[in-house]
C-alpha cells in the first residue's frame, strides 16, 4: 500500500483482522475481511456489522452568538434543508449545492443542542469545510475534526450489541444524536447509517477508536465489514453514492432527492430558496426535469454496472439513460442498479434495455429501496 495514503485510527486493527486494504478517497481502507463481501453483506442484514468510516469528515459549527439556531440558519445559506427547525439531538440529511443547483456533496447535520455536527464525504471534506468556513465564518466558528474515529454499527442486532455498553442507545429513535460515553469513552452517538438497516454511528477521539471498535467487535453477532459490502448494502437500500449517483452535474430534483428539501425551503415556504442555485432547483421543482434518477433491476443474474447505457428498445437504437451504480444484490439475489433516464421512461415498471458486453439485457425501473428498511422510527 502506498505510503502516501492516510490511515484511519483503526488501520492497525484492520491489519490484525486480515482485511484486504485498498486506496479510497486518499485513505487505506478495508475492502473486505476474510469472510468476504457476500458473507459480510448478509451478516449485516441479519445480525450486525461494524464499519470503519473514520475517513469521512466531521465539521463542528458553533454560532458566535451562542445560539445553535443561528448556526443552523447560517448553514441553510448553503444547504436546501430546514435546519433551523431541526430539534436538539436530531439529525437530518442534506445537500450542498453549487450556483447551478448541482450537488457538491451530501451530508448529515446533527443539532447537538449547543452546536451543529456535520458529517461529509471523505473525498469532499476539505472543499466542503472551505466552503462552509468561507460562507459562515462571520457568524460561526467552523472546526474541522478530520482526525477523529467514526464507526458505524449496522444491522438488526445493533441495538442488542450496543445497549449493554451504552443503555441510552436502546431508547434512541432513527436520526437521534446524543453525546454520551461508552465504557468511559466520550462519544457522539447517532441512530443512523447508510445500509438501510437499523444501527448507530459512533464518533470518538482517534486515540479511543481502536478500544471502542474492539469493544463492539467483542459483542455477540458483530463482525467487521468492509467497503465492498458497504457499497452493495447502500445500493440495495437505494442510497446514493456521491461521485457516482450524484455530483455537480445532477441537481436534487434530477437526483430524486426532493424529499431532502423540506417544505420551509420549497416554493411558498417560510424560508424559500436562499441557497446556491436555488432559482434552478425551484424552477425544476415547479416545471419538472428532463431526466431523473431511478432504481433498476435486471433480469437474469448478470450485474448491470455503472456506465452501462440504457435504451428504450432491445436493438439499442433509442438511448434514454445511463446506469450510475450497479451490482449483484446479495440480499435480493438479483442484479440491482440505479441510474438516470429521460423522464418519459422514469415510471416504475417501465421496461428498458441495458447494454452489457454488446448485448441488450432487459431491465425494469423499480421503486427503491430494493430491501425493506429496518429503521427504528
Amino acid at each position: 500500500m502506498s505510503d502516501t495514503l492516510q490511515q484511519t485510527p483503526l488501520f492497525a486493527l484492520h491489519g490484525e483482522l486480515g482485511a484486504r486494504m485498498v486506496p479510497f478517497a486518499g485513505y487505506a481502507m478495508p475492502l473486505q475481511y476474510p469472510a468476504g463481501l457476500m458473507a459480510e453483506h448478509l451478516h449485516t442484514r441479519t445480525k450486525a456489522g461494524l464499519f470503519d468510516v473514520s475517513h469521512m469528515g466531521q465539521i463542528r459549527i458553533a454560532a458566535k452568538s451562542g445560539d445553535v439556531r443561528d448556526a443552523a440558519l447560517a448553514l441553510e445559506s448553503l444547504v436546501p434543508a430546514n435546519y433551523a427547525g431541526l430539534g436538539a439531538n436530531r439529525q437530518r440529511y442534506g445537500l450542498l449545492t453549487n450556483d447551478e443547483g448541482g450537488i457538491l456533496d451530501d451530508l448529515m447535520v446533527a443539532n447537538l443542542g449547543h452546536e451543529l455536527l456535520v458529517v461529509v464525504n471523505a473525498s469532499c471534506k476539505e472543499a466542503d469545510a472551505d466552503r462552509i468556513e468561507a460562507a459562515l465564518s462571520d457568524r460561526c466558528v467552523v472546526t474541522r475534526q478530520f482526525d477523529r474515529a467514526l464507526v458505524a454499527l449496522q444491522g438488526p442486532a445493533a441495538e442488542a450489541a450496543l445497549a449493554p455498553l451504552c443503555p441510552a442507545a436502546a431508547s434512541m429513535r432513527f436520526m437521534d444524536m446524543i453525546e454520551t460515553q461508552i465504557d468511559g469513552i466520550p462519544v457522539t452517538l447517532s441512530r443512523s447509517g447508510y445500509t438501510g438497516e437499523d444501527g448507530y454511528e459512533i464518533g470518538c477521539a482517534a486515540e479511543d477508536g481502536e478500544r471502542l471498535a474492539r469493544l463492539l467487535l467483542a459483542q455477540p453477532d458483530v463482525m467487521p465489514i468492509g467497503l465492498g459490502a458497504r457499497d452493495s448494502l447502500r445500493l440495495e437500500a437505494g442510497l446514493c453514492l456521491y461521485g457516482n449517483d450524484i455530483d455537480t452535474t445532477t441537481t436534487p430534483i434530477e437526483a430524486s432527492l426532493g424529499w431532502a428539501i423540506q417544505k420551509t425551503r420549497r416554493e411558498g415556504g417560510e424560508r424559500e430558496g436562499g441557497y446556491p442555485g436555488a432559482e434552478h432547483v425551484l424552477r425544476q421543482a415547479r416545471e419538472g426535469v428532463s431526466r431523473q434518477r431511478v432504481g433498476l433491476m435486471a433480469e437474469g443474474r448478470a450485474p448491470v454496472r455503472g456506465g452501462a447505457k440504457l435504451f428504450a428498445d432491445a436493438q439499442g437504437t433509442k438511448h434514454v439513460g445511463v446506469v450510475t451504480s450497479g451490482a449483484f444484490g446479495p440480499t435480493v439475489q438479483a442484479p440491482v442498479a440505479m441510474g438516470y433516464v429521460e423522464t418519459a421512461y422514469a415510471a416504475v415498471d417501465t421496461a428498458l434495455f441495458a447494454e452489457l458486453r454488446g448485448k441488450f439485457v432487459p431491465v425494469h425501473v423499480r421503486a427503491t429501496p430494493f430491501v425493506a428498511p429496518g429503521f427504528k422510527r
Partner: protein
Amino acid sequence: MTTYYTKSHEWIRLEGTEATVGITAHASEELGELVFVEAKDEGTEVAAGDAAAVVESVKAASDIYAPVAGTVSGFNDRLSDEPTLVGSEPEGEGWIFRMTVSNPEEVTSLLTREQYDAL
C-alpha cells in the same frame, strides 16, 4: 495431458486440439464469491489474450482471457445456476469454457505449474 497456466491466472488443459479453460485457485480467491459467469458464444474466434469469458463478483466484472488462439466450443452450463462452483473447485468442476485451439503447440509457450507457482 498437461495443464498450463497464464500470468493472468487462467489454466488450460489440452487433449488433442480440444482444451478446457478455467481460473486458478489463487485467482478465484482474489475475486471472491462469484455471482455470474458467462463465456463468448460457441464459434467465437479468439486470439491469445482476447476476453473469452467474464466472471462477476458482487463488486466487479473480470475478463477471462483465452490462453491461446482458437474457437470457443462450449461453456460449463452448471455455472449458470451455480457460479460459486468456480470458487469451490476452480481447477476441477468449476472449469469455465472449452475451446478448439488453432495450434496445440502454442500451449508450450505458457507457464508450467512450477513456473506459475513461482510468480
